[in-house]
Protein backbone atom coordinates (compact mmCIF):
# COMPACT_ATOMS: atom_id res chain seq x y z
CA UNK A 1 0.00 0.00 0.00
CA UNK A 2 1.42 3.32 -1.08
CA UNK A 3 0.36 5.16 2.02
CA UNK A 4 1.30 2.54 4.62
CA UNK A 5 4.29 4.58 5.77
CA UNK A 6 2.16 7.69 6.22
CA UNK A 7 -0.47 5.68 8.12
CA UNK A 8 2.15 4.25 10.45
CA UNK A 9 3.57 7.74 10.93
CA UNK A 10 0.10 8.96 11.92
CA UNK A 11 -0.29 6.23 14.55
CA UNK A 12 3.14 6.82 16.03
CA UNK A 13 2.73 10.58 15.95
CA UNK A 14 -0.56 10.27 17.83
CA UNK A 15 1.35 8.54 20.63
CA UNK A 16 4.17 11.06 20.65
CA UNK A 17 1.92 14.12 20.84
CA UNK A 18 -0.08 12.64 23.70
CA UNK A 19 3.15 11.73 25.51
CA UNK A 20 4.11 15.39 25.15
CA UNK A 21 0.62 16.48 26.33
CA UNK A 22 0.38 18.33 23.05
CA UNK A 23 -3.39 18.00 22.92
CA UNK A 24 -3.84 20.49 20.12
CA UNK A 25 -1.36 18.48 18.08
CA UNK A 26 -3.36 15.34 18.79
CA UNK A 27 -6.63 16.91 17.67
CA UNK A 28 -4.95 18.06 14.45
CA UNK A 29 -4.39 14.41 13.62
CA UNK A 30 -8.13 13.68 14.00
CA UNK A 31 -10.86 13.93 11.40
CA UNK A 32 -13.77 16.23 12.27
CA UNK A 33 -15.90 13.07 12.68
CA UNK A 34 -13.38 11.52 15.09
CA UNK A 35 -14.71 9.06 17.66
CA UNK A 36 -12.64 7.82 20.59
CA UNK A 37 -13.33 5.00 23.03
CA UNK A 38 -11.60 2.98 25.69
CA UNK A 39 -13.25 -0.43 25.95
CA UNK A 40 -12.67 -3.69 27.78
CA UNK A 41 -14.30 -7.02 28.35
CA UNK A 42 -14.98 -7.91 31.97
CA UNK A 43 -14.71 -11.65 32.64
CA UNK A 44 -16.07 -10.87 36.13
CA UNK A 45 -19.47 -9.66 34.94
CA UNK A 46 -19.23 -11.26 31.50
CA UNK A 47 -19.92 -7.99 29.74
CA UNK A 48 -18.39 -5.64 27.24
CA UNK A 49 -17.65 -2.31 28.90
CA UNK A 50 -17.01 1.21 27.65
CA UNK A 51 -14.78 3.17 30.01
CA UNK A 52 -14.47 6.39 28.06
CA UNK A 53 -16.15 7.60 24.88
CA UNK A 54 -15.98 10.96 23.16
CA UNK A 55 -16.34 12.65 19.82
CA UNK A 56 -13.76 15.21 18.72
CA UNK A 57 -15.49 18.00 20.63
CA UNK A 58 -15.69 15.83 23.72
CA UNK A 59 -11.97 15.14 23.53
CA UNK A 60 -11.33 18.85 23.11
CA UNK A 61 -13.37 19.61 26.27
CA UNK A 62 -11.65 16.85 28.18
CA UNK A 63 -8.25 18.26 27.30
CA UNK A 64 -9.33 21.85 28.02
CA UNK A 65 -10.63 20.91 31.47
CA UNK A 66 -7.50 19.03 32.54
CA UNK A 67 -5.79 21.99 34.25
CA UNK A 68 -8.86 22.46 36.45
CA UNK A 69 -8.61 18.96 37.89
CA UNK A 70 -6.26 17.41 40.40
CA UNK A 71 -4.32 14.71 38.58
CA UNK A 72 -1.42 12.35 38.86
CA UNK A 73 1.26 14.17 36.89
CA UNK A 74 3.47 11.13 36.29
CA UNK A 75 4.19 11.15 32.55
CA UNK A 76 3.05 8.31 30.33
CA UNK A 77 5.01 6.80 27.50
CA UNK A 78 2.96 5.11 24.79
CA UNK A 79 4.70 2.37 22.83
CA UNK A 80 2.79 1.25 19.76
CA UNK A 81 3.64 -1.35 17.18
CA UNK A 82 1.55 -1.38 14.02
CA UNK A 83 0.63 -4.98 13.28
CA UNK A 84 -1.90 -4.72 10.46
CA UNK A 85 -3.00 -2.11 7.95
CA UNK A 86 -6.09 -3.21 6.02
CA UNK A 87 -7.48 -1.16 3.18
CA UNK A 88 -11.21 -0.51 3.38
CA UNK A 89 -13.92 1.38 1.50
CA UNK A 90 -12.10 1.05 -1.84
CA UNK A 91 -8.97 2.62 -0.54
CA UNK A 92 -10.62 5.58 1.15
CA UNK A 93 -10.02 4.21 4.62
CA UNK A 94 -7.65 1.88 6.39
CA UNK A 95 -8.19 -0.22 9.50
CA UNK A 96 -5.04 -0.27 11.59
CA UNK A 97 -4.43 -2.75 14.37
CA UNK A 98 -1.58 -1.94 16.73
CA UNK A 99 -0.26 -3.32 19.98
CA UNK A 100 -0.01 -0.70 22.69
CA UNK A 101 1.94 -0.68 25.90
CA UNK A 102 1.73 2.31 28.21
CA UNK A 103 4.46 2.96 30.75
CA UNK A 104 4.24 5.34 33.68
CA UNK A 105 7.31 7.04 35.09
CA UNK A 106 7.30 8.58 38.55
CA UNK A 107 8.32 12.22 38.82
CA UNK A 108 10.20 11.54 42.04
CA UNK A 109 13.07 9.23 41.14
CA UNK A 110 11.93 8.27 37.66
CA UNK A 111 10.93 4.67 38.29
CA UNK A 112 9.03 3.28 35.31
CA UNK A 113 6.24 0.75 35.53
CA UNK A 114 4.10 -0.93 32.92
CA UNK A 115 0.73 0.80 33.27
CA UNK A 116 -1.39 -0.78 30.55
CA UNK A 117 -1.43 -3.33 27.76
CA UNK A 118 -3.96 -2.89 24.98
CA UNK A 119 -4.72 -3.23 21.32
CA UNK A 120 -5.27 0.02 19.47
CA UNK A 121 -7.85 -0.38 16.72
CA UNK A 122 -7.91 2.65 14.45
CA UNK A 123 -9.91 3.60 11.41
CA UNK A 124 -7.94 6.04 9.33
CA UNK A 125 -9.47 8.34 6.74
CA UNK A 126 -7.20 8.58 3.70
CA UNK A 127 -7.44 12.03 2.19
CA UNK A 128 -5.35 13.81 -0.45
CA UNK A 129 -3.97 15.92 2.38
CA UNK A 130 -2.84 12.82 4.22
CA UNK A 131 -4.33 10.30 6.66
CA UNK A 132 -6.52 11.39 9.59
CA UNK A 133 -7.76 9.45 12.60
CA UNK A 134 -11.47 8.74 12.16
CA UNK A 135 -12.03 6.25 14.96
CA UNK A 136 -9.83 4.97 17.77
CA UNK A 137 -10.69 2.13 20.11
CA UNK A 138 -8.21 1.47 22.89
CA UNK A 139 -9.09 -2.14 23.60
CA UNK A 140 -7.75 -2.79 27.07
CA UNK A 141 -6.28 -5.99 28.37
CA UNK A 142 -5.20 -4.29 31.59
CA UNK A 143 -8.16 -3.43 33.78
CA UNK A 144 -6.48 -2.44 37.01
CA UNK A 145 -5.07 1.06 37.01
CA UNK A 146 -4.57 1.77 40.69
CA UNK A 147 -5.55 5.39 41.22
CA UNK A 148 -6.46 5.77 37.53
CA UNK A 149 -5.47 8.55 35.16
CA UNK A 150 -7.09 11.61 33.59
CA UNK A 151 -5.47 11.61 30.16
CA UNK A 152 -6.59 9.03 27.58
CA UNK A 153 -4.06 6.66 26.01
Amino acid at each position, binding site marked *: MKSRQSIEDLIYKSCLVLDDKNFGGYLELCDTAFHYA*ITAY*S*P*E*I*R*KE*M*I*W*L*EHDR*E*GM*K*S*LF*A*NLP*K*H*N*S*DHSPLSRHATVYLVEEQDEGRKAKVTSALQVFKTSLDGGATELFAVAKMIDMVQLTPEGPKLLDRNIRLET*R*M*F*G*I*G*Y*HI*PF
Partner: protein
Amino acid sequence: MARNSVEWEEKPNFPSTHYVDTGIYTDEKIFREEQEKVFNKVWIIACHESELPNAFDYRTFSHPGGAPLFVVRGEDMKVRTFYNICPHRGNTLLYDPVGNAKRITCIFHAWSFNAKGDCIEISREKQGYQERFSCDKAGLREVKTGIGYGGFVWVNVDDDSCSLSEYVGDAMGLLDEHLSEPMEVFHYHKAVVNTNYKLWHDTNSEFYHDYMHYFNRITGMIQPGYFDRKYTGFPNGHASVGSMAIKYDAYEGSKKRGVGWPGLAPGGWVLIDMFPGMTYNLRTSVLRMDTAIPLGPNKLLIEFRGLGLKSDTPEQRAERVRDHNQIWGPFGRNLHEDLLGVHGQGLAMQERSGSKWVIHGREENMTIHDEGGMRHFYAEWSKLMGRKAHAPYADEAAAVA
Protein backbone atom coordinates in the same frame (compact mmCIF):
# COMPACT_ATOMS: atom_id res chain seq x y z
CA MET B 1 2.35 29.41 63.33
CA ALA B 2 4.37 26.29 62.60
CA ARG B 3 4.65 23.81 65.47
CA ASN B 4 7.61 22.02 67.02
CA SER B 5 7.74 18.25 67.64
CA VAL B 6 6.01 18.43 71.03
CA GLU B 7 3.26 20.70 69.78
CA TRP B 8 2.76 18.47 66.69
CA GLU B 9 2.02 15.47 68.93
CA GLU B 10 -0.24 17.30 71.37
CA LYS B 11 -3.81 16.03 71.38
CA PRO B 12 -6.05 18.21 69.21
CA ASN B 13 -8.13 20.62 71.23
CA PHE B 14 -11.39 18.91 70.35
CA PRO B 15 -13.64 16.44 72.16
CA SER B 16 -12.14 12.94 71.94
CA THR B 17 -14.87 11.95 69.47
CA HIS B 18 -13.58 14.55 67.01
CA TYR B 19 -10.13 13.17 66.17
CA VAL B 20 -8.42 9.81 65.77
CA ASP B 21 -4.90 8.50 66.26
CA THR B 22 -3.37 7.62 62.89
CA GLY B 23 -2.15 4.36 64.41
CA ILE B 24 -5.58 2.96 63.56
CA TYR B 25 -4.63 3.32 59.88
CA THR B 26 -1.10 1.98 60.03
CA ASP B 27 -0.84 -0.69 62.71
CA GLU B 28 -0.64 -4.28 61.43
CA LYS B 29 -1.92 -5.62 64.77
CA ILE B 30 -4.97 -3.36 64.67
CA PHE B 31 -5.64 -4.43 61.09
CA ARG B 32 -5.62 -8.13 62.07
CA GLU B 33 -7.99 -7.30 64.92
CA GLU B 34 -10.28 -5.50 62.51
CA GLN B 35 -10.49 -8.58 60.33
CA GLU B 36 -11.60 -10.61 63.32
CA LYS B 37 -13.73 -8.15 65.27
CA VAL B 38 -15.23 -6.09 62.44
CA PHE B 39 -15.18 -7.81 59.06
CA ASN B 40 -15.79 -11.31 60.36
CA LYS B 41 -18.81 -10.08 62.36
CA VAL B 42 -20.74 -7.90 59.94
CA TRP B 43 -22.67 -8.29 56.68
CA ILE B 44 -20.59 -7.58 53.57
CA ILE B 45 -21.68 -7.22 49.94
CA ALA B 46 -20.09 -9.98 47.84
CA CYS B 47 -21.66 -9.30 44.43
CA HIS B 48 -24.96 -8.49 42.74
CA GLU B 49 -27.62 -11.06 41.97
CA SER B 50 -27.49 -10.13 38.27
CA GLU B 51 -23.99 -11.62 38.17
CA LEU B 52 -25.59 -15.02 38.83
CA PRO B 53 -28.63 -15.12 36.55
CA ASN B 54 -28.79 -18.88 35.96
CA ALA B 55 -28.85 -22.01 38.06
CA PHE B 56 -25.29 -23.15 38.86
CA ASP B 57 -23.76 -19.73 38.07
CA TYR B 58 -21.03 -18.87 40.55
CA ARG B 59 -18.99 -15.79 41.47
CA THR B 60 -15.86 -15.75 43.62
CA PHE B 61 -15.28 -13.15 46.33
CA SER B 62 -12.30 -12.36 48.54
CA HIS B 63 -13.89 -11.70 51.91
CA PRO B 64 -12.22 -8.81 53.77
CA GLY B 65 -11.94 -11.02 56.86
CA GLY B 66 -9.59 -13.21 54.84
CA ALA B 67 -11.68 -16.14 53.62
CA PRO B 68 -11.86 -16.86 49.90
CA LEU B 69 -15.54 -17.41 49.08
CA PHE B 70 -17.74 -18.33 46.18
CA VAL B 71 -21.40 -17.48 45.77
CA VAL B 72 -23.45 -19.96 43.75
CA ARG B 73 -27.05 -20.15 42.58
CA GLY B 74 -28.50 -23.61 43.17
CA GLU B 75 -30.83 -25.64 41.01
CA ASP B 76 -33.57 -24.34 43.34
CA MET B 77 -32.42 -20.79 42.32
CA LYS B 78 -31.43 -20.10 45.93
CA VAL B 79 -28.11 -18.28 46.31
CA ARG B 80 -25.66 -19.78 48.78
CA THR B 81 -22.09 -19.00 49.74
CA PHE B 82 -19.21 -21.28 50.67
CA TYR B 83 -15.52 -21.12 51.46
CA ASN B 84 -13.66 -21.59 48.17
CA ILE B 85 -11.54 -24.21 49.89
CA CYS B 86 -11.54 -27.95 49.32
CA PRO B 87 -11.92 -29.68 52.68
CA HIS B 88 -9.45 -32.39 51.60
CA ARG B 89 -6.09 -30.68 51.06
CA GLY B 90 -7.09 -27.04 51.22
CA ASN B 91 -6.91 -26.32 47.51
CA THR B 92 -8.87 -23.62 45.71
CA LEU B 93 -12.04 -25.11 44.27
CA LEU B 94 -13.03 -22.47 41.72
CA TYR B 95 -10.30 -20.52 39.99
CA ASP B 96 -12.22 -18.32 37.56
CA PRO B 97 -14.07 -15.27 38.93
CA VAL B 98 -17.32 -16.47 37.36
CA GLY B 99 -18.63 -19.59 35.73
CA ASN B 100 -21.31 -22.22 35.73
CA ALA B 101 -20.69 -25.46 37.56
CA LYS B 102 -23.36 -28.07 38.12
CA ARG B 103 -20.70 -30.13 39.81
CA ILE B 104 -17.81 -28.40 41.56
CA THR B 105 -14.79 -30.66 41.28
CA CYS B 106 -11.46 -29.93 42.88
CA ILE B 107 -8.75 -30.22 40.24
CA PHE B 108 -6.32 -31.66 42.77
CA HIS B 109 -7.85 -35.06 43.70
CA ALA B 110 -11.30 -34.81 42.07
CA TRP B 111 -13.46 -34.49 45.17
CA SER B 112 -16.83 -33.16 43.97
CA PHE B 113 -19.50 -30.95 45.52
CA ASN B 114 -22.94 -29.71 44.51
CA ALA B 115 -24.34 -26.18 44.67
CA LYS B 116 -25.73 -26.88 48.16
CA GLY B 117 -22.23 -27.51 49.46
CA ASP B 118 -22.72 -31.27 49.82
CA CYS B 119 -19.80 -33.51 49.00
CA ILE B 120 -21.12 -35.82 46.30
CA GLU B 121 -18.04 -37.82 45.44
CA ILE B 122 -14.70 -38.68 46.95
CA SER B 123 -12.56 -40.35 44.35
CA ARG B 124 -11.75 -43.96 45.37
CA GLU B 125 -13.48 -43.29 48.68
CA LYS B 126 -13.88 -46.86 49.96
CA GLN B 127 -10.39 -47.96 48.91
CA GLY B 128 -8.78 -45.15 50.83
CA TYR B 129 -11.05 -44.44 53.76
CA GLN B 130 -12.94 -47.76 54.11
CA GLU B 131 -15.73 -47.00 56.65
CA ARG B 132 -13.70 -44.37 58.53
CA PHE B 133 -14.61 -41.31 56.46
CA SER B 134 -17.17 -40.46 53.80
CA CYS B 135 -18.86 -37.69 51.85
CA ASP B 136 -21.28 -36.86 54.63
CA LYS B 137 -18.37 -35.51 56.71
CA ALA B 138 -16.78 -33.61 53.84
CA GLY B 139 -19.26 -30.85 53.03
CA LEU B 140 -18.16 -27.31 52.28
CA ARG B 141 -18.19 -24.58 54.90
CA GLU B 142 -21.35 -22.56 54.26
CA VAL B 143 -21.56 -18.85 54.96
CA LYS B 144 -24.75 -16.98 55.80
CA THR B 145 -26.15 -15.31 52.69
CA GLY B 146 -28.90 -12.79 52.10
CA ILE B 147 -30.12 -10.88 49.06
CA GLY B 148 -31.59 -7.45 49.35
CA TYR B 149 -31.33 -3.68 49.23
CA GLY B 150 -31.10 -3.46 45.47
CA GLY B 151 -30.47 -7.12 44.74
CA PHE B 152 -27.02 -7.27 46.30
CA VAL B 153 -25.72 -10.54 47.67
CA TRP B 154 -24.65 -10.04 51.29
CA VAL B 155 -22.59 -12.54 53.24
CA ASN B 156 -21.68 -12.93 56.90
CA VAL B 157 -19.06 -15.44 58.01
CA ASP B 158 -20.29 -15.29 61.62
CA ASP B 159 -22.82 -18.08 62.13
CA ASP B 160 -24.15 -16.26 65.19
CA SER B 161 -24.62 -12.86 63.56
CA CYS B 162 -27.82 -10.84 63.56
CA SER B 163 -30.00 -11.02 60.46
CA LEU B 164 -29.25 -8.86 57.43
CA SER B 165 -32.38 -6.77 58.01
CA GLU B 166 -31.37 -6.19 61.64
CA TYR B 167 -27.92 -5.16 60.48
CA VAL B 168 -29.17 -2.68 57.87
CA GLY B 169 -32.06 -1.41 60.01
CA ASP B 170 -33.50 1.85 58.68
CA ALA B 171 -30.27 2.98 57.03
CA MET B 172 -31.54 2.38 53.50
CA GLY B 173 -34.61 4.59 53.96
CA LEU B 174 -33.50 7.26 51.48
CA LEU B 175 -32.95 4.66 48.76
CA ASP B 176 -35.69 2.11 49.40
CA GLU B 177 -38.09 3.56 46.86
CA HIS B 178 -35.35 3.87 44.23
CA LEU B 179 -34.22 0.26 44.34
CA SER B 180 -37.46 -1.54 43.59
CA GLU B 181 -36.81 -2.26 39.90
CA PRO B 182 -34.48 -5.13 38.94
CA MET B 183 -30.99 -3.84 38.30
CA GLU B 184 -27.97 -5.05 36.38
CA VAL B 185 -24.24 -4.44 36.70
CA PHE B 186 -22.80 -2.82 33.57
CA HIS B 187 -19.47 -1.66 34.93
CA TYR B 188 -16.95 -3.47 37.08
CA HIS B 189 -13.37 -2.75 37.90
CA LYS B 190 -10.96 -3.18 40.75
CA ALA B 191 -8.34 -0.84 42.09
CA VAL B 192 -5.55 -1.56 44.55
CA VAL B 193 -4.38 1.52 46.42
CA ASN B 194 -1.77 1.88 49.13
CA THR B 195 -4.06 3.29 51.78
CA ASN B 196 -6.23 2.17 54.68
CA TYR B 197 -9.79 1.06 53.99
CA LYS B 198 -11.20 3.48 56.56
CA LEU B 199 -9.68 6.41 54.72
CA TRP B 200 -11.55 5.35 51.59
CA HIS B 201 -14.78 4.99 53.53
CA ASP B 202 -14.07 8.40 55.09
CA THR B 203 -13.82 9.89 51.61
CA ASN B 204 -17.23 8.41 50.86
CA SER B 205 -18.49 9.76 54.20
CA GLU B 206 -17.57 13.42 53.95
CA PHE B 207 -18.22 16.05 51.30
CA TYR B 208 -15.84 18.70 52.60
CA HIS B 209 -13.37 17.19 50.12
CA ASP B 210 -15.51 18.54 47.27
CA TYR B 211 -12.83 21.23 47.24
CA MET B 212 -10.68 18.57 45.51
CA HIS B 213 -13.25 18.03 42.74
CA TYR B 214 -13.62 20.75 40.15
CA PHE B 215 -16.62 18.85 38.80
CA ASN B 216 -18.40 18.85 42.18
CA ARG B 217 -17.54 22.45 42.92
CA ILE B 218 -18.95 23.72 39.65
CA THR B 219 -22.02 21.45 39.51
CA GLY B 220 -22.76 21.23 43.22
CA MET B 221 -20.97 23.40 45.73
CA ILE B 222 -21.83 26.71 44.08
CA GLN B 223 -25.42 25.63 43.39
CA PRO B 224 -28.46 26.28 45.61
CA GLY B 225 -29.26 23.57 48.13
CA TYR B 226 -25.74 22.18 48.41
CA PHE B 227 -25.21 23.27 52.01
CA ASP B 228 -28.65 21.96 53.02
CA ARG B 229 -27.76 18.29 52.43
CA LYS B 230 -27.79 16.48 55.74
CA TYR B 231 -26.09 13.48 57.28
CA THR B 232 -28.15 11.01 59.26
CA GLY B 233 -26.49 8.36 61.36
CA PHE B 234 -28.06 4.94 61.91
CA PRO B 235 -27.31 2.05 64.29
CA ASN B 236 -24.39 -0.24 63.38
CA GLY B 237 -22.32 2.62 61.96
CA HIS B 238 -24.29 3.34 58.78
CA ALA B 239 -24.99 6.90 57.57
CA SER B 240 -26.89 8.55 54.76
CA VAL B 241 -26.60 11.88 52.97
CA GLY B 242 -29.67 13.68 51.66
CA SER B 243 -30.15 14.82 48.07
CA MET B 244 -29.90 18.10 46.17
CA ALA B 245 -30.24 19.15 42.53
CA ILE B 246 -26.86 18.89 40.84
CA LYS B 247 -26.44 21.23 37.86
CA TYR B 248 -24.56 18.91 35.53
CA ASP B 249 -24.57 21.23 32.55
CA ALA B 250 -22.39 23.67 34.51
CA TYR B 251 -19.42 21.45 33.62
CA GLU B 252 -18.04 22.31 30.21
CA GLY B 253 -18.63 19.55 27.69
CA SER B 254 -21.43 17.85 29.65
CA LYS B 255 -24.04 16.10 27.53
CA LYS B 256 -27.76 16.47 28.14
CA ARG B 257 -29.06 14.01 30.71
CA GLY B 258 -32.50 12.59 30.16
CA VAL B 259 -32.70 9.03 31.45
CA GLY B 260 -32.55 9.68 35.18
CA TRP B 261 -33.46 7.08 37.78
CA PRO B 262 -36.89 5.90 38.95
CA GLY B 263 -38.13 8.17 41.72
CA LEU B 264 -34.98 10.29 41.84
CA ALA B 265 -35.53 13.97 41.09
CA PRO B 266 -33.53 15.28 38.10
CA GLY B 267 -30.01 16.00 39.26
CA GLY B 268 -30.71 14.16 42.53
CA TRP B 269 -27.94 12.50 44.50
CA VAL B 270 -28.40 10.12 47.43
CA LEU B 271 -25.50 8.44 49.18
CA ILE B 272 -25.58 5.77 51.87
CA ASP B 273 -22.48 4.50 53.63
CA MET B 274 -22.83 1.02 55.02
CA PHE B 275 -20.42 0.11 57.78
CA PRO B 276 -17.59 -0.84 57.48
CA GLY B 277 -16.79 -0.26 53.79
CA MET B 278 -19.66 -0.27 51.34
CA THR B 279 -21.25 2.76 49.70
CA TYR B 280 -24.44 3.14 47.70
CA ASN B 281 -23.99 6.20 45.52
CA LEU B 282 -26.99 7.10 43.36
CA ARG B 283 -26.71 10.11 41.09
CA THR B 284 -27.76 11.03 37.56
CA SER B 285 -28.78 7.73 36.01
CA VAL B 286 -26.42 5.35 37.78
CA LEU B 287 -26.09 3.49 41.05
CA ARG B 288 -22.45 3.03 42.01
CA MET B 289 -21.47 0.50 44.63
CA ASP B 290 -18.05 0.50 46.26
CA THR B 291 -16.90 -2.49 48.26
CA ALA B 292 -13.73 -2.01 50.28
CA ILE B 293 -11.62 -5.11 50.82
CA PRO B 294 -8.59 -4.33 52.97
CA LEU B 295 -5.48 -6.36 52.14
CA GLY B 296 -3.37 -4.86 54.91
CA PRO B 297 -3.23 -1.72 57.04
CA ASN B 298 -1.95 0.29 54.09
CA LYS B 299 -3.23 -1.76 51.16
CA LEU B 300 -6.79 -1.68 49.91
CA LEU B 301 -8.64 -3.42 47.12
CA ILE B 302 -11.80 -1.63 46.05
CA GLU B 303 -14.43 -3.22 43.84
CA PHE B 304 -16.37 -0.67 41.80
CA ARG B 305 -19.71 -1.53 40.26
CA GLY B 306 -21.96 0.62 38.10
CA LEU B 307 -25.59 -0.46 37.82
CA GLY B 308 -28.48 0.40 35.57
CA LEU B 309 -31.95 -1.07 35.20
CA LYS B 310 -32.43 -4.52 33.75
CA SER B 311 -35.20 -3.06 31.59
CA ASP B 312 -32.89 -0.51 29.94
CA THR B 313 -33.11 -0.02 26.19
CA PRO B 314 -29.72 0.15 24.43
CA GLU B 315 -30.08 3.93 24.26
CA GLN B 316 -30.86 4.24 27.96
CA ARG B 317 -27.97 1.98 28.86
CA ALA B 318 -25.61 3.99 26.67
CA GLU B 319 -26.55 7.15 28.53
CA ARG B 320 -26.03 5.49 31.91
CA VAL B 321 -22.61 4.29 30.79
CA ARG B 322 -21.75 7.81 29.64
CA ASP B 323 -22.99 9.38 32.88
CA HIS B 324 -21.00 6.82 34.87
CA ASN B 325 -17.78 7.29 32.95
CA GLN B 326 -17.71 11.04 33.07
CA ILE B 327 -17.07 11.09 36.81
CA TRP B 328 -16.71 7.51 38.08
CA GLY B 329 -14.91 5.43 35.47
CA PRO B 330 -11.20 4.66 35.84
CA PHE B 331 -10.66 7.60 33.46
CA GLY B 332 -13.45 9.66 35.01
CA ARG B 333 -12.98 13.13 36.44
CA ASN B 334 -13.83 12.42 40.10
CA LEU B 335 -12.72 8.86 40.82
CA HIS B 336 -9.09 9.55 39.96
CA GLU B 337 -9.12 12.56 42.26
CA ASP B 338 -10.68 10.59 45.13
CA LEU B 339 -8.14 7.80 44.71
CA LEU B 340 -5.30 10.30 44.43
CA GLY B 341 -6.49 11.79 47.72
CA VAL B 342 -6.46 8.54 49.69
CA HIS B 343 -3.22 7.50 47.98
CA GLY B 344 -1.70 10.69 49.37
CA GLN B 345 -3.01 9.88 52.85
CA GLY B 346 -1.47 6.43 52.53
CA LEU B 347 1.89 8.00 51.63
CA ALA B 348 1.80 10.38 54.56
CA MET B 349 0.34 8.02 57.15
CA GLN B 350 2.78 5.22 57.64
CA GLU B 351 4.42 3.94 60.78
CA ARG B 352 7.24 6.29 61.74
CA SER B 353 6.18 8.86 59.13
CA GLY B 354 5.42 11.31 61.92
CA SER B 355 1.69 11.48 61.27
CA LYS B 356 -0.22 11.50 64.53
CA TRP B 357 -3.79 12.75 64.37
CA VAL B 358 -6.66 13.03 61.92
CA ILE B 359 -9.24 15.65 62.82
CA HIS B 360 -12.97 15.11 62.37
CA GLY B 361 -13.89 18.33 64.10
CA ARG B 362 -16.23 20.16 61.73
CA GLU B 363 -19.67 20.85 63.19
CA GLU B 364 -22.24 22.40 60.87
CA ASN B 365 -25.50 21.04 62.23
CA MET B 366 -24.81 17.75 60.41
CA THR B 367 -25.02 19.46 57.02
CA ILE B 368 -22.80 18.61 54.10
CA HIS B 369 -19.43 19.84 55.40
CA ASP B 370 -20.01 18.56 58.94
CA GLU B 371 -17.70 15.65 59.73
CA GLY B 372 -20.35 13.84 61.75
CA GLY B 373 -20.57 11.00 59.25
CA MET B 374 -17.00 9.99 60.08
CA ARG B 375 -17.52 10.51 63.80
CA HIS B 376 -20.48 8.16 63.59
CA PHE B 377 -18.33 5.54 61.86
CA TYR B 378 -15.56 5.71 64.46
CA ALA B 379 -18.01 5.43 67.34
CA GLU B 380 -19.13 2.07 65.95
CA TRP B 381 -15.56 1.06 65.11
CA SER B 382 -14.45 1.80 68.68
CA LYS B 383 -17.34 -0.23 70.07
CA LEU B 384 -16.58 -3.31 67.98
CA MET B 385 -12.83 -3.08 68.40
CA GLY B 386 -12.84 -2.37 72.12
CA ARG B 387 -10.35 0.37 71.36
CA LYS B 388 -10.91 4.10 71.32
CA ALA B 389 -10.16 5.54 67.89
CA HIS B 390 -8.55 8.58 69.50
CA ALA B 391 -6.47 6.51 71.94
CA PRO B 392 -6.22 2.98 70.52
CA TYR B 393 -3.39 1.95 72.80
CA ALA B 394 -4.77 3.41 76.02
CA ASP B 395 -5.67 0.07 77.61
CA GLU B 396 -2.31 -1.49 76.71
CA ALA B 397 -0.47 1.51 78.14
CA ALA B 398 -2.52 1.28 81.33
CA ALA B 399 -1.75 -2.44 81.65
CA VAL B 400 2.00 -1.78 81.36
CA ALA B 401 1.78 1.01 83.93
